[in-house]
Protein backbone atom coordinates (compact mmCIF):
# COMPACT_ATOMS: atom_id res chain seq x y z
CA UNK A 1 0.00 0.00 0.00
CA UNK A 2 1.26 3.43 -0.90
CA UNK A 3 -0.14 6.55 0.77
CA UNK A 4 1.18 9.13 -1.66
CA UNK A 5 2.02 7.37 -4.90
CA UNK A 6 2.76 10.60 -6.71
CA UNK A 7 5.53 11.50 -4.26
CA UNK A 8 6.79 8.09 -3.27
CA UNK A 9 7.03 6.59 -6.74
CA UNK A 10 8.26 9.66 -8.58
CA UNK A 11 10.84 9.09 -11.30
CA UNK A 12 14.27 10.08 -10.03
CA UNK A 13 14.71 12.77 -12.64
CA UNK A 14 11.50 14.44 -11.57
CA UNK A 15 12.39 13.98 -7.90
CA UNK A 16 15.76 15.67 -8.37
CA UNK A 17 14.04 18.58 -10.07
CA UNK A 18 11.71 18.94 -7.08
CA UNK A 19 14.63 18.62 -4.66
CA UNK A 20 16.57 21.28 -6.51
CA UNK A 21 13.70 23.75 -6.27
CA UNK A 22 13.12 23.00 -2.62
CA UNK A 23 16.79 23.15 -1.69
CA UNK A 24 17.15 26.49 -3.40
CA UNK A 25 14.21 27.92 -1.50
CA UNK A 26 15.49 26.43 1.74
CA UNK A 27 18.98 27.90 1.39
CA UNK A 28 17.43 31.26 0.71
CA UNK A 29 15.25 30.95 3.86
CA UNK A 30 18.29 30.04 5.91
CA UNK A 31 20.27 32.93 4.48
CA UNK A 32 17.67 35.54 5.27
CA UNK A 33 16.14 34.13 8.47
CA UNK A 34 18.83 32.28 10.42
CA UNK A 35 21.86 34.39 11.41
CA UNK A 36 23.84 31.26 12.28
CA UNK A 37 23.61 29.99 8.71
CA UNK A 38 23.98 33.39 7.10
CA UNK A 39 27.30 33.81 8.90
CA UNK A 40 28.43 30.39 7.71
CA UNK A 41 27.41 31.15 4.13
CA UNK A 42 29.17 34.49 4.19
CA UNK A 43 32.33 32.90 5.59
CA UNK A 44 32.33 30.55 2.61
CA UNK A 45 31.33 33.24 0.14
CA UNK A 46 27.98 31.67 -0.65
CA UNK A 47 25.15 33.96 -1.69
CA UNK A 48 21.47 33.21 -1.12
CA UNK A 49 20.81 32.24 -4.72
CA UNK A 50 24.10 30.52 -5.51
CA UNK A 51 22.72 27.07 -4.77
CA UNK A 52 20.51 25.73 -7.53
CA UNK A 53 21.00 21.99 -7.44
CA UNK A 54 21.44 19.11 -5.01
CA UNK A 55 24.79 18.44 -6.70
CA UNK A 56 26.01 21.57 -4.94
CA UNK A 57 25.10 20.19 -1.50
CA UNK A 58 28.70 19.17 -0.90
CA UNK A 59 29.77 22.81 -0.90
CA UNK A 60 27.38 23.73 1.87
CA UNK A 61 28.34 23.77 5.54
CA UNK A 62 27.54 20.85 7.82
CA UNK A 63 25.51 21.19 10.99
CA UNK A 64 26.36 19.26 14.13
CA UNK A 65 24.54 18.63 17.39
CA UNK A 66 26.79 21.11 19.16
CA UNK A 67 25.47 23.84 16.86
CA UNK A 68 21.99 23.09 18.18
CA UNK A 69 23.24 23.28 21.74
CA UNK A 70 25.10 26.51 21.08
CA UNK A 71 21.91 28.01 19.71
CA UNK A 72 19.70 26.58 22.42
CA UNK A 73 16.79 26.84 22.58
CA UNK A 74 15.40 28.70 19.57
CA UNK A 75 18.46 30.16 17.85
CA UNK A 76 18.12 28.03 14.72
CA UNK A 77 14.45 28.72 14.17
CA UNK A 78 13.74 30.28 10.81
CA UNK A 79 10.35 31.74 11.66
CA UNK A 80 9.13 34.05 14.44
CA UNK A 81 7.97 32.22 17.54
CA UNK A 82 4.38 33.18 16.75
CA UNK A 83 4.56 30.79 13.80
CA UNK A 84 5.73 27.89 15.97
CA UNK A 85 2.84 25.71 17.07
CA UNK A 86 4.69 22.85 18.75
CA UNK A 87 7.96 22.20 20.51
CA UNK A 88 9.59 18.84 21.06
CA UNK A 89 12.92 18.02 22.64
CA UNK A 90 15.22 15.13 23.21
CA UNK A 91 17.26 15.57 26.35
CA UNK A 92 20.90 14.79 26.79
CA UNK A 93 23.39 13.78 29.44
CA UNK A 94 25.23 17.05 29.09
CA UNK A 95 22.25 19.08 30.11
CA UNK A 96 20.81 21.03 27.24
CA UNK A 97 18.12 19.23 25.28
CA UNK A 98 17.91 19.24 21.52
CA UNK A 99 14.86 21.26 20.54
CA UNK A 100 12.61 20.89 17.54
CA UNK A 101 10.16 23.65 16.62
CA UNK A 102 7.26 23.01 14.26
CA UNK A 103 5.06 25.34 12.28
CA UNK A 104 1.55 24.23 11.40
CA UNK A 105 2.82 23.14 8.02
CA UNK A 106 5.70 21.20 9.61
CA UNK A 107 3.18 19.24 11.66
CA UNK A 108 1.29 18.50 8.46
CA UNK A 109 4.49 17.32 6.80
CA UNK A 110 5.24 15.17 9.79
CA UNK A 111 1.77 13.59 9.79
CA UNK A 112 2.18 13.03 6.05
CA UNK A 113 5.45 11.13 6.37
CA UNK A 114 4.15 9.04 9.27
CA UNK A 115 1.01 8.31 7.24
CA UNK A 116 3.28 7.12 4.41
CA UNK A 117 5.23 5.04 6.92
CA UNK A 118 2.12 3.34 8.23
CA UNK A 119 0.86 2.59 4.76
CA UNK A 120 4.28 1.19 3.89
CA UNK A 121 3.81 -1.17 6.82
CA UNK A 122 0.42 -2.19 5.46
CA UNK A 123 -1.54 -0.27 8.06
CA UNK A 124 -4.74 1.57 7.09
CA UNK A 125 -7.99 2.99 8.49
CA UNK A 126 -9.23 -0.46 9.46
CA UNK A 127 -6.42 -0.85 11.94
CA UNK A 128 -6.31 -0.20 15.66
CA UNK A 129 -2.94 1.42 16.29
CA UNK A 130 -1.63 1.02 19.81
CA UNK A 131 1.02 3.69 20.43
CA UNK A 132 3.31 2.71 23.29
CA UNK A 133 5.96 5.28 22.49
CA UNK A 134 6.21 7.87 25.23
CA UNK A 135 3.97 10.89 24.80
CA UNK A 136 5.51 14.19 25.71
CA UNK A 137 8.56 16.07 24.58
CA UNK A 138 9.81 12.86 22.99
CA UNK A 139 8.64 12.79 19.36
CA UNK A 140 7.75 9.09 19.33
CA UNK A 141 4.29 9.17 20.86
CA UNK A 142 2.74 12.21 19.22
CA UNK A 143 4.54 11.53 15.94
CA UNK A 144 2.98 8.12 15.48
CA UNK A 145 -0.29 9.38 16.87
CA UNK A 146 -0.71 12.15 14.28
CA UNK A 147 0.19 9.90 11.37
CA UNK A 148 -2.15 7.13 12.48
CA UNK A 149 -4.90 9.69 12.88
CA UNK A 150 -4.21 11.02 9.39
CA UNK A 151 -4.79 7.64 7.76
CA UNK A 152 -7.98 7.26 9.77
CA UNK A 153 -6.87 4.39 11.95
CA UNK A 154 -8.22 3.98 15.45
CA UNK A 155 -5.50 5.32 17.71
CA UNK A 156 -4.87 4.14 21.26
CA UNK A 157 -2.55 6.69 22.93
CA UNK A 158 -1.19 4.20 25.47
CA UNK A 159 2.21 5.85 25.98
CA UNK A 160 4.95 3.97 27.85
CA UNK A 161 4.92 1.91 31.03
CA UNK A 162 2.20 0.06 32.93
CA UNK A 163 2.85 -3.00 30.84
CA UNK A 164 0.21 -5.37 32.19
CA UNK A 165 -2.51 -2.81 31.69
CA UNK A 166 -1.28 -2.19 28.16
CA UNK A 167 -1.68 -5.88 27.40
CA UNK A 168 -5.17 -5.84 28.82
CA UNK A 169 -6.05 -2.85 26.62
CA UNK A 170 -4.52 -4.49 23.55
CA UNK A 171 -6.58 -7.56 24.27
CA UNK A 172 -9.85 -5.77 25.01
CA UNK A 173 -9.61 -3.08 22.33
CA UNK A 174 -8.38 -5.45 19.64
CA UNK A 175 -5.14 -3.61 18.78
CA UNK A 176 -3.84 -4.71 15.41
CA UNK A 177 -0.72 -2.55 15.24
CA UNK A 178 1.84 -1.98 17.96
CA UNK A 179 4.10 1.07 17.78
CA UNK A 180 6.92 1.18 20.33
CA UNK A 181 10.63 0.58 20.67
CA UNK A 182 11.80 -2.94 19.80
CA UNK A 183 13.00 -3.55 23.33
CA UNK A 184 9.66 -2.59 24.74
CA UNK A 185 8.04 -4.99 22.29
CA UNK A 186 10.15 -7.74 23.77
CA UNK A 187 9.31 -6.65 27.25
CA UNK A 188 5.63 -6.83 26.36
CA UNK A 189 6.20 -10.34 25.05
CA UNK A 190 8.00 -11.29 28.24
CA UNK A 191 5.19 -9.92 30.37
CA UNK A 192 2.61 -11.77 28.31
CA UNK A 193 4.38 -14.97 29.11
CA UNK A 194 4.49 -14.05 32.77
CA UNK A 195 0.76 -13.49 33.02
CA UNK A 196 -0.05 -16.50 30.88
CA UNK A 197 -1.37 -14.60 27.87
CA UNK A 198 -0.89 -16.28 24.49
CA UNK A 199 -0.05 -14.06 21.49
CA UNK A 200 -2.94 -15.69 19.64
CA UNK A 201 -5.31 -13.99 22.08
CA UNK A 202 -4.25 -10.67 20.56
CA UNK A 203 -5.00 -9.38 17.07
CA UNK A 204 -1.59 -7.77 16.51
CA UNK A 205 -0.38 -8.10 12.93
CA UNK A 206 2.13 -5.28 12.50
CA UNK A 207 4.77 -3.70 14.67
CA UNK A 208 6.21 -0.23 13.96
CA UNK A 209 9.42 -0.28 15.90
CA UNK A 210 12.10 2.36 16.12
CA UNK A 211 13.93 4.98 18.19
CA UNK A 212 16.80 2.59 18.81
CA UNK A 213 18.93 0.41 16.57
CA UNK A 214 17.92 -3.21 16.44
CA UNK A 215 19.22 -6.27 14.74
CA UNK A 216 17.65 -8.80 12.40
CA UNK A 217 17.89 -11.33 15.24
CA UNK A 218 15.84 -9.05 17.37
CA UNK A 219 13.30 -8.73 14.56
CA UNK A 220 12.93 -12.50 14.32
CA UNK A 221 12.59 -12.81 18.06
CA UNK A 222 9.86 -10.18 18.22
CA UNK A 223 7.99 -11.52 15.22
CA UNK A 224 7.99 -14.98 16.68
CA UNK A 225 6.99 -13.92 20.16
CA UNK A 226 4.29 -11.43 19.26
CA UNK A 227 3.00 -13.08 16.07
CA UNK A 228 3.34 -9.92 13.98
CA UNK A 229 5.44 -8.49 11.19
CA UNK A 230 8.04 -6.14 12.65
CA UNK A 231 9.05 -3.05 10.67
CA UNK A 232 11.70 -0.46 11.32
CA UNK A 233 10.86 3.24 11.46
CA UNK A 234 13.56 5.90 11.63
CA UNK A 235 13.62 9.50 12.65
CA UNK A 236 15.14 12.08 14.91
CA UNK A 237 13.82 15.14 16.66
CA UNK A 238 16.25 17.45 14.89
CA UNK A 239 14.93 16.47 11.49
CA UNK A 240 11.24 16.02 12.34
CA UNK A 241 10.79 12.90 14.52
CA UNK A 242 9.79 9.38 13.46
CA UNK A 243 8.89 9.09 9.80
CA UNK A 244 12.08 10.34 8.18
CA UNK A 245 12.49 6.85 6.75
CA UNK A 246 10.49 3.65 6.97
CA UNK A 247 10.69 0.04 5.92
CA UNK A 248 8.02 -1.32 3.64
CA UNK A 249 6.55 -4.78 3.95
CA UNK A 250 9.40 -6.21 1.91
CA UNK A 251 11.70 -5.45 4.84
CA UNK A 252 14.45 -4.48 2.50
CA UNK A 253 15.77 -1.16 3.73
CA UNK A 254 14.15 2.01 5.01
CA UNK A 255 12.63 4.32 2.40
CA UNK A 256 13.70 7.92 2.95
CA UNK A 257 10.97 10.43 2.17
CA UNK A 258 13.33 12.27 -0.10
CA UNK A 259 10.89 14.93 -1.22
CA UNK A 260 11.24 16.30 2.34
CA UNK A 261 14.59 15.06 3.59
CA UNK A 262 17.73 14.91 1.48
CA UNK A 263 19.97 12.07 2.60
CA UNK A 264 23.71 11.91 2.15
CA UNK A 265 26.17 9.30 3.34
CA UNK A 266 29.56 10.78 4.20
CA UNK A 267 32.83 9.31 5.21
CA UNK A 268 32.92 10.36 8.90
CA UNK A 269 36.61 11.25 8.64
CA UNK A 270 36.92 13.03 5.33
CA UNK A 271 33.28 14.22 5.32
CA UNK A 272 33.17 13.44 1.62
CA UNK A 273 30.26 11.51 0.09
CA UNK A 274 30.78 7.75 -0.21
CA UNK A 275 29.44 5.71 -3.15
CA UNK A 276 26.04 4.01 -2.87
CA UNK A 277 26.25 0.83 -0.84
CA UNK A 278 29.13 1.98 1.29
CA UNK A 279 28.75 2.61 4.98
CA UNK A 280 29.16 6.12 6.30
CA UNK A 281 27.52 8.73 8.45
CA UNK A 282 24.00 9.64 7.57
CA UNK A 283 23.47 13.36 6.97
CA UNK A 284 20.12 15.04 6.37
CA UNK A 285 19.02 18.31 4.86
CA UNK A 286 15.40 19.22 5.51
CA UNK A 287 14.13 20.83 2.34
CA UNK A 288 10.57 21.63 3.31
CA UNK A 289 10.81 22.39 6.98
CA UNK A 290 9.86 25.88 8.10
CA UNK A 291 10.31 25.96 11.87
CA UNK A 292 13.82 24.67 12.19
CA UNK A 293 15.30 23.80 8.80
CA UNK A 294 18.67 22.11 9.09
CA UNK A 295 21.37 22.00 6.51
CA UNK A 296 23.43 18.82 6.22
CA UNK A 297 22.78 17.72 9.77
CA UNK A 298 25.15 15.00 10.92
CA UNK A 299 23.01 12.33 12.58
CA UNK A 300 25.94 10.29 13.91
CA UNK A 301 24.10 7.24 12.64
CA UNK A 302 26.07 4.83 10.53
CA UNK A 303 24.42 3.16 7.56
CA UNK A 304 24.57 2.71 3.81
CA UNK A 305 22.15 3.76 1.08
CA UNK A 306 20.85 2.56 -2.26
CA UNK A 307 18.65 4.27 -4.88
CA UNK A 308 17.58 1.08 -6.60
CA UNK A 309 13.84 0.85 -7.05
CA UNK A 310 12.21 -1.36 -4.42
CA UNK A 311 9.88 -4.27 -5.22
CA UNK A 312 7.10 -2.27 -3.59
CA UNK A 313 7.31 0.32 -6.38
CA UNK A 314 8.75 3.16 -4.32
CA UNK A 315 11.59 4.98 -6.01
CA UNK A 316 12.92 6.72 -2.93
CA UNK A 317 16.38 5.94 -1.63
CA UNK A 318 16.63 3.19 0.93
CA UNK A 319 18.82 3.04 4.01
CA UNK A 320 20.10 -0.24 5.29
CA UNK A 321 19.53 -1.19 8.88
CA UNK A 322 21.51 1.05 11.17
CA UNK A 323 24.81 -0.04 12.57
CA UNK A 324 24.99 2.24 15.54
CA UNK A 325 24.01 5.48 17.10
CA UNK A 326 25.48 7.57 19.81
CA UNK A 327 22.87 9.56 21.54
CA UNK A 328 22.33 10.93 24.96
CA UNK A 329 18.98 9.47 25.67
CA UNK A 330 18.93 5.90 26.78
CA UNK A 331 16.03 3.78 25.76
CA UNK A 332 15.66 0.93 28.16
CA UNK A 333 12.85 -1.58 27.71
CA UNK A 334 11.06 1.01 25.63
CA UNK A 335 11.24 3.73 28.23
CA UNK A 336 13.28 6.87 27.77
CA UNK A 337 15.80 7.27 30.52
CA UNK A 338 17.92 10.32 31.09
CA UNK A 339 20.85 9.96 33.45
CA UNK A 340 19.87 13.34 34.86
CA UNK A 341 16.66 11.78 36.19
CA UNK A 342 18.73 9.40 38.30
CA UNK A 343 20.75 12.33 39.50
CA UNK A 344 17.66 14.22 40.61
CA UNK A 345 16.40 11.19 42.56
CA UNK A 346 19.72 10.83 44.33
CA UNK A 347 19.95 14.52 45.03
CA UNK A 348 16.54 14.51 46.63
CA UNK A 349 17.68 11.82 49.04
CA UNK A 350 19.94 12.99 51.82
CA UNK A 351 21.54 9.60 52.27
CA UNK A 352 23.24 9.35 48.91
CA UNK A 353 25.81 11.21 46.89
CA UNK A 354 24.96 12.32 43.36
CA UNK A 355 27.71 10.07 42.12
CA UNK A 356 26.32 7.25 40.14
CA UNK A 357 26.83 5.13 37.11
CA UNK A 358 24.22 3.52 34.93
CA UNK A 359 25.18 0.19 33.49
CA UNK A 360 22.84 -1.02 30.79
CA UNK A 361 23.15 -4.49 29.44
CA UNK A 362 21.05 -6.86 27.43
CA UNK A 363 20.54 -10.30 28.87
CA UNK A 364 18.43 -12.74 26.83
CA UNK A 365 17.33 -9.84 24.62
CA UNK A 366 16.03 -7.89 27.61
CA UNK A 367 17.50 -4.64 28.78
CA UNK A 368 18.87 -4.66 32.31
CA UNK A 369 19.64 -1.47 34.17
CA UNK A 370 21.99 -1.47 37.09
CA UNK A 371 22.75 1.72 38.96
CA UNK A 372 25.83 2.03 41.10
CA UNK A 373 25.33 4.54 43.87
CA UNK A 374 27.94 5.84 46.23
CA UNK A 375 26.96 5.75 49.87
CA UNK A 376 27.30 8.93 51.81
CA UNK A 377 30.02 8.52 54.44
CA UNK A 378 27.99 10.16 57.13
CA UNK A 379 24.94 8.07 56.51
CA UNK A 380 26.60 4.74 56.06
CA UNK A 381 25.40 2.38 58.76
CA UNK A 382 27.03 -0.52 60.53
CA UNK A 383 23.80 -2.43 60.19
CA UNK A 384 23.04 -4.51 57.13
CA UNK A 385 19.31 -4.04 57.33
CA UNK A 386 19.62 -0.26 57.31
CA UNK A 387 21.75 -0.40 54.20
CA UNK A 388 19.29 -2.80 52.64
CA UNK A 389 16.45 -0.46 53.53
CA UNK A 390 18.39 2.34 51.87
CA UNK A 391 18.85 0.23 48.75
CA UNK A 392 15.13 -0.45 48.62
CA UNK A 393 14.30 3.19 49.11
CA UNK A 394 16.57 4.24 46.25
CA UNK A 395 15.14 1.50 44.09
CA UNK A 396 11.57 2.59 44.78
CA UNK A 397 12.36 6.25 44.09
CA UNK A 398 14.19 5.40 40.89
CA UNK A 399 11.35 3.23 39.70
CA UNK A 400 8.71 5.84 40.31
CA UNK A 401 10.76 8.46 38.48
CA UNK A 402 12.06 6.42 35.55
CA UNK A 403 9.11 4.12 35.18
CA UNK A 404 11.32 1.07 34.96
CA UNK A 405 12.95 -1.13 37.55
CA UNK A 406 16.65 -1.02 38.21
CA UNK A 407 19.08 -2.97 40.30
CA UNK A 408 20.71 -0.71 42.86
CA UNK A 409 24.20 -1.45 43.99
CA UNK A 410 25.77 0.55 46.79
CA UNK A 411 29.45 1.19 46.29
CA UNK A 412 32.18 2.74 48.37
CA UNK A 413 32.65 6.48 48.32
CA UNK A 414 34.75 7.91 45.51
CA UNK A 415 34.96 4.66 43.60
CA UNK A 416 32.94 5.96 40.68
CA UNK A 417 35.24 7.62 38.23
CA UNK A 418 35.21 11.40 38.41
CA UNK A 419 35.72 13.57 35.42
CA UNK A 420 36.50 17.21 35.03
CA UNK A 421 34.81 17.45 31.71
CA UNK A 422 31.82 15.48 30.63
CA UNK A 423 30.98 12.92 33.29
CA UNK A 424 30.65 9.38 32.20
CA UNK A 425 27.27 8.43 33.60
CA UNK A 426 26.48 5.51 31.39
CA UNK A 427 28.10 2.31 30.35
CA UNK A 428 26.01 0.77 27.65
CA UNK A 429 27.04 -2.82 27.09
CA UNK A 430 24.19 -3.63 24.77
CA UNK A 431 25.23 -4.88 21.35
CA UNK A 432 24.31 -2.44 18.61
Amino acid sequence: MIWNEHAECMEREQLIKLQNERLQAMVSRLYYNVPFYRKKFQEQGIEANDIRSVDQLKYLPLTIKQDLRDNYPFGLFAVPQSEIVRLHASSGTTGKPTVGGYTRRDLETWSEVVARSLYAAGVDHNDVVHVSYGYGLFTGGLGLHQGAQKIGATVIPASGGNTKKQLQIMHDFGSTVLACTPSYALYLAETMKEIGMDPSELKLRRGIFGAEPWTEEMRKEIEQKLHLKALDIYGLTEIIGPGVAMECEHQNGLHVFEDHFLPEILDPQTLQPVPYGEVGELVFTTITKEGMPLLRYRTRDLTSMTIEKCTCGRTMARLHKFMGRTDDMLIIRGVNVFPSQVESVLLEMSETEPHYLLIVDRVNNLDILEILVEVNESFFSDEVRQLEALTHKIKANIESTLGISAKIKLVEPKTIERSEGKAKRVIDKRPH
Partner: protein
Amino acid sequence: MLLQQLSLFLENKTGRLAEVTRVLSEKHINIAAFSIADTADFGILRMIVDQTDVALAALKQQGFAVHTTDVVGFVIPNQPGNLYQALQHLDSIAIEIEYLYAFAHNGDAAAVIKTNDNKLTATTLKEFGYHLLEAGEQLD
Protein backbone atom coordinates in the same frame (compact mmCIF):
# COMPACT_ATOMS: atom_id res chain seq x y z
CA MET B 1 31.48 1.85 79.72
CA LEU B 2 31.02 1.48 75.99
CA LEU B 3 33.55 0.29 73.45
CA GLN B 4 34.33 2.01 70.17
CA GLN B 5 34.00 -0.21 67.17
CA LEU B 6 35.24 0.63 63.70
CA SER B 7 32.59 -0.01 61.06
CA LEU B 8 33.54 -0.10 57.39
CA PHE B 9 31.49 -0.35 54.27
CA LEU B 10 33.15 -2.69 51.80
CA GLU B 11 32.11 -3.51 48.29
CA ASN B 12 32.28 -7.16 47.37
CA LYS B 13 35.42 -6.78 45.35
CA THR B 14 38.59 -8.78 45.47
CA GLY B 15 41.34 -7.26 47.52
CA ARG B 16 39.27 -4.83 49.55
CA LEU B 17 39.67 -6.69 52.84
CA ALA B 18 43.36 -7.15 52.25
CA GLU B 19 43.63 -3.43 51.66
CA VAL B 20 42.04 -2.67 55.05
CA THR B 21 44.42 -4.95 56.85
CA ARG B 22 47.37 -3.48 54.96
CA VAL B 23 46.49 0.03 56.15
CA LEU B 24 46.18 -1.17 59.72
CA SER B 25 49.38 -3.17 59.61
CA GLU B 26 51.35 -0.18 58.33
CA LYS B 27 50.14 1.80 61.33
CA HIS B 28 51.00 -1.12 63.67
CA ILE B 29 47.46 -1.42 64.78
CA ASN B 30 46.38 -4.59 66.48
CA ILE B 31 42.99 -6.05 65.73
CA ALA B 32 41.35 -7.57 68.81
CA ALA B 33 38.06 -8.60 67.30
CA PHE B 34 36.78 -8.75 63.81
CA SER B 35 33.53 -9.68 62.10
CA ILE B 36 32.01 -9.31 58.68
CA ALA B 37 28.34 -9.08 57.83
CA ASP B 38 27.97 -9.77 54.16
CA THR B 39 25.30 -9.49 51.51
CA ALA B 40 25.54 -10.27 47.81
CA ASP B 41 26.82 -6.82 46.94
CA PHE B 42 28.56 -5.42 49.96
CA GLY B 43 29.88 -6.26 53.37
CA ILE B 44 30.16 -4.43 56.65
CA LEU B 45 33.38 -4.97 58.47
CA ARG B 46 33.29 -4.48 62.24
CA MET B 47 36.47 -4.32 64.26
CA ILE B 48 37.76 -3.59 67.73
CA VAL B 49 41.34 -2.34 67.54
CA ASP B 50 43.86 -1.08 70.03
CA GLN B 51 44.21 2.46 68.66
CA THR B 52 40.80 3.36 67.33
CA ASP B 53 41.52 7.00 66.52
CA VAL B 54 44.70 6.26 64.61
CA ALA B 55 43.01 3.49 62.67
CA LEU B 56 40.00 5.69 61.89
CA ALA B 57 42.15 8.48 60.53
CA ALA B 58 44.33 6.14 58.48
CA LEU B 59 41.36 4.37 56.92
CA LYS B 60 39.56 7.62 56.16
CA GLN B 61 42.65 8.93 54.53
CA GLN B 62 42.68 5.89 52.26
CA GLY B 63 39.13 6.68 51.20
CA PHE B 64 37.24 4.01 53.12
CA ALA B 65 33.70 4.62 54.28
CA VAL B 66 34.42 4.14 57.95
CA HIS B 67 33.05 5.41 61.20
CA THR B 68 32.96 4.48 64.84
CA THR B 69 30.01 2.85 66.49
CA ASP B 70 29.32 2.42 70.20
CA VAL B 71 29.07 -1.19 71.25
CA VAL B 72 29.17 -3.11 74.51
CA GLY B 73 32.02 -5.53 75.17
CA PHE B 74 31.86 -8.01 78.01
CA VAL B 75 33.67 -11.07 79.22
CA ILE B 76 31.92 -14.40 79.29
CA PRO B 77 33.48 -17.01 81.59
CA ASN B 78 34.60 -19.97 79.55
CA GLN B 79 31.91 -22.44 80.59
CA PRO B 80 28.89 -23.91 78.83
CA GLY B 81 25.69 -21.95 79.26
CA ASN B 82 27.20 -18.59 80.13
CA LEU B 83 26.32 -16.82 76.91
CA TYR B 84 22.81 -18.14 77.22
CA GLN B 85 22.59 -16.72 80.71
CA ALA B 86 23.85 -13.30 79.66
CA LEU B 87 21.39 -13.13 76.78
CA GLN B 88 18.56 -14.19 79.05
CA HIS B 89 19.22 -11.20 81.27
CA LEU B 90 18.92 -8.94 78.27
CA ASP B 91 15.87 -10.72 76.95
CA SER B 92 14.12 -10.32 80.31
CA ILE B 93 14.17 -6.55 79.91
CA ALA B 94 13.20 -6.71 76.22
CA ILE B 95 16.57 -5.64 74.80
CA GLU B 96 16.80 -6.24 71.05
CA ILE B 97 20.12 -7.40 69.69
CA GLU B 98 21.31 -5.90 66.40
CA TYR B 99 24.39 -8.06 66.19
CA LEU B 100 26.88 -9.94 68.32
CA TYR B 101 30.27 -11.43 67.72
CA ALA B 102 32.73 -13.10 70.03
CA PHE B 103 36.45 -13.51 70.40
CA ALA B 104 38.93 -15.15 72.75
CA HIS B 105 40.05 -13.05 75.67
CA ASN B 106 42.65 -14.19 78.24
CA GLY B 107 41.40 -17.75 78.15
CA ASP B 108 37.80 -16.68 78.44
CA ALA B 109 35.43 -15.52 75.73
CA ALA B 110 34.47 -11.95 75.11
CA ALA B 111 31.49 -10.71 73.17
CA VAL B 112 30.82 -7.49 71.35
CA ILE B 113 27.16 -6.69 71.25
CA LYS B 114 25.10 -3.91 69.77
CA THR B 115 21.53 -3.53 70.90
CA ASN B 116 18.71 -1.07 70.59
CA ASP B 117 19.85 0.36 73.95
CA ASN B 118 23.57 -0.01 74.53
CA LYS B 119 23.64 1.87 77.81
CA LEU B 120 20.90 -0.19 79.38
CA THR B 121 22.63 -3.30 78.08
CA ALA B 122 25.90 -2.26 79.68
CA THR B 123 24.39 -1.38 83.06
CA THR B 124 22.31 -4.55 83.12
CA LEU B 125 25.30 -6.75 82.36
CA LYS B 126 27.33 -4.93 84.96
CA GLU B 127 24.63 -5.40 87.56
CA PHE B 128 24.66 -9.11 86.93
CA GLY B 129 28.39 -9.12 87.53
CA TYR B 130 29.81 -9.29 84.04
CA HIS B 131 33.15 -7.64 83.42
CA LEU B 132 32.70 -4.91 80.83
CA LEU B 133 35.57 -4.24 78.45
CA GLU B 134 36.70 -0.63 78.44
CA ALA B 135 38.39 1.36 75.75
CA GLY B 136 42.15 1.14 76.13
CA GLU B 137 41.94 -2.14 78.00
CA GLN B 138 44.35 -4.81 76.80
CA LEU B 139 42.08 -6.90 74.65
CA ASP B 140 44.07 -9.97 73.79
